[in-house]
């Protein structure tokens, strides 16, 4: 399949799933909190398409799209958001902890910055095993001010680990503009020099540019060239979480970014490149159908059995701490 069509397909699926997740919040079917990445699809799609099936993804609590992009079933994701027994983690993790190891999705981590050193560890293991796998770790701009960011980047650089640290700079650290709380202009790229790394900035709304950047960095890491720190400029269309309408953002800024929405922009680009409208419409229809079917499967799923509470703390499947 044409890579461009695959990139488009993935972005359309992500958009459809996230919109559906939002509808399900409004209907009260998704509990707790949830963090959507509507508007940031190009980053997840571009990297996932460039990765090998056995590469590792580490995501943040804003990880629905990354999980879908690695091949995890949409029904399993939506069911997990809805606390169903047919969810990816049987309802044990929820929205912020999506994990699907069979798809290389090594977890979504809800404490800001915690997963950067963990991704480094997976890369270290790949290096020692000589497997040529690469760990790709996505994080937000706010993470760059957490201590674990610096510890992880330093260790990755010193040990020349095959890991890509990808900052999805969506301009806001929760409710606060990242520039208001950061000493440098570019929170990730401007710090690359501190670890002896190249300064890399990519337009995170241009999926072709993301894909090319990902291919380059993955290739370098696989050949023993060490880590990369990549800053992808993008924007979340909604607020930080379901409770946040995002009204603190200047209207002009929101409009500017919405005009650069990566999904319709790529559609326009593909049409201009001579791809038939019917092909794109077919991808869109398929995504809509998939989303409806996944929603139904999730809604029809059973509630997790209460006995699951004391299961899977330990590798023996149980949770006993005494004999």
């Amino acid at each position: 399949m044409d890579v461009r069509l695959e990139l488009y397909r993935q972005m359309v699926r992500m958009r459809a799933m996230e919109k559906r997740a939002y509808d399900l919040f409004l209907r009260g079917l998704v509990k707790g909190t949830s963090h959507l990445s509507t508007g940031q699809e190009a980053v997840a799609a571009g990297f996932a398409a460039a990765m090998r099936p056995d590469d590792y993804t580490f995501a943040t609590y804003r990880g629905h799209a990354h999980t879908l992009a690695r091949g995890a079933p949409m029904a399993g994701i939506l069911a997990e958001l809805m606390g169903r027994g047919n969810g990816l983690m049987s309802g044990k993790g929820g929205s912020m902890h999506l994990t699907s190891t069979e798809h290389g999705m090594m977890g979504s981590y809800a404490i800001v910055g915690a997963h950067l050193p963990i991704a480094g560890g997976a890369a270290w293991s790949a290096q020692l095993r000589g497997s040529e796998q690469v760990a790709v770790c996505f994080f937000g701009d706010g993470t760059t001010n957490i201590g674990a960011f610096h510890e992880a980047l330093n260790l990755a650089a010193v040990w020349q680990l095959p890991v890509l640290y990808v900052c999805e700079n969506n301009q806001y650290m929760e409710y606060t503009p990242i520039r208001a709380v950061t000493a440098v202009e570019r929170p990730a790229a401007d710090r690359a020099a501190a670890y002896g790394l190249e300064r890399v900035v990519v337009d995170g709304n241009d999926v072709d540019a993301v894909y090319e950047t990902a291919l380059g960095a993955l290739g370098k890491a696989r050949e023993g060239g060490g880590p990369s720190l990549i800053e992808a400029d993008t924007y979340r269309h909604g607020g930080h979480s379901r409770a946040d309408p995002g009204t603190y953002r200047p209207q002009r800024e929101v409009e500017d970014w919405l005009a650069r929405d990566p999904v319709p922009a790529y559609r326009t680009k593909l049409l201009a490149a001579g791809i038939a409208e019917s092909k794109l419409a077919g991808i869109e229809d398929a995504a809509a159908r998939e989303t409806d079917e996944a929603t139904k499967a999730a809604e029809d799923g059973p509630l997790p059995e209460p006995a699951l509470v004391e299961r899977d703390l330990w590798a023996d499947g149980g949770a006993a701490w005494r004999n």
Partner: protein
Amino acid sequence: MAQLTYRDAVARGLAQEMRRDERVVLLGEDVAEAGGVFKTTPGLLEEFGPRRVRDTPISEQAILGAAMGAAMTGLRPIAEIMFSDFFGVGWDLLANQIAKTRYMAGGQLSLPLVVRAANGGGLRFGAQHSQDVANWVMAVPGLKVVVPSTPRDVVGLLAAAVRDPDPVVFLEAKGLYPVRGEVPDGEITDTLGSAVLRREGGDCVIVTLGLMAPRALAAAERLEREHGIAAAVLDLRSLVPLDVRAVLEQLERTGRLFTVEENPRLCGWGAEVVSICAEEGFTSLDGPLVRITTPHVPLPAADSLEDAALPSVDRITETVAKSMD
């Protein structure tokens, strides 16, 4: 049979497991070139090379994170946190990530790793390099907690910890590092959650582990000699899993139970042990359950103050004798 110090036993145990399984790797501050600040890892770099024995920066989060990421992708890492007091620096990785991830992922991820640290007092290091943090880690669901008291057990329990499929916090009693003991030749392995009866006695049982185990034994000898009290001494060896059966069995046999623990009193492991005894061994009780602990203070530095804070042979002997009167 060799006479080894507790510190030498750590290196012996690590080497035993690294020879057995090439997935076992060691990382931490000063563990390679320097052989460990407590000289618990000498010779390992020479035998296993820099790929498997790695010096790290002073980055507790990076050390624990690297161990976790490596464990979930096929290695069996052993991370050294130089002093257990520094768990605080890496507490998110230890308590939120390493401990919770298997459960949150619905069992998809396994984390077979060991976090070793020099734990507790006895060396006059002051409050930030001396506290016994067993009570911190045992309260977190998802961490197993081991505290050996003899050189032989260091080797056997370290082997059990490395081979265990779950995260194990291995607390080395730093006050015991210079203590010698017999260690049999050849491979030694133990089972986590199995207490050892160090001394038989029909009048009462003293439940303990780590640095306090030899003190409890010395106190038991004095109790016999000076007071005619026959005290059994049960060395728990691990707190998670906890050998409750052995505790209740000794309680049933003796009717009186004392705990001797190094951690500060509030929410120390002894509280859990006596609570279980009160709930499940009540009919065996011939007297109050008594806890002997460090007071609820950070550990002070001066000789006389640290000695006053930690349970001593004198304090254990006197407390038990008075209570048994």
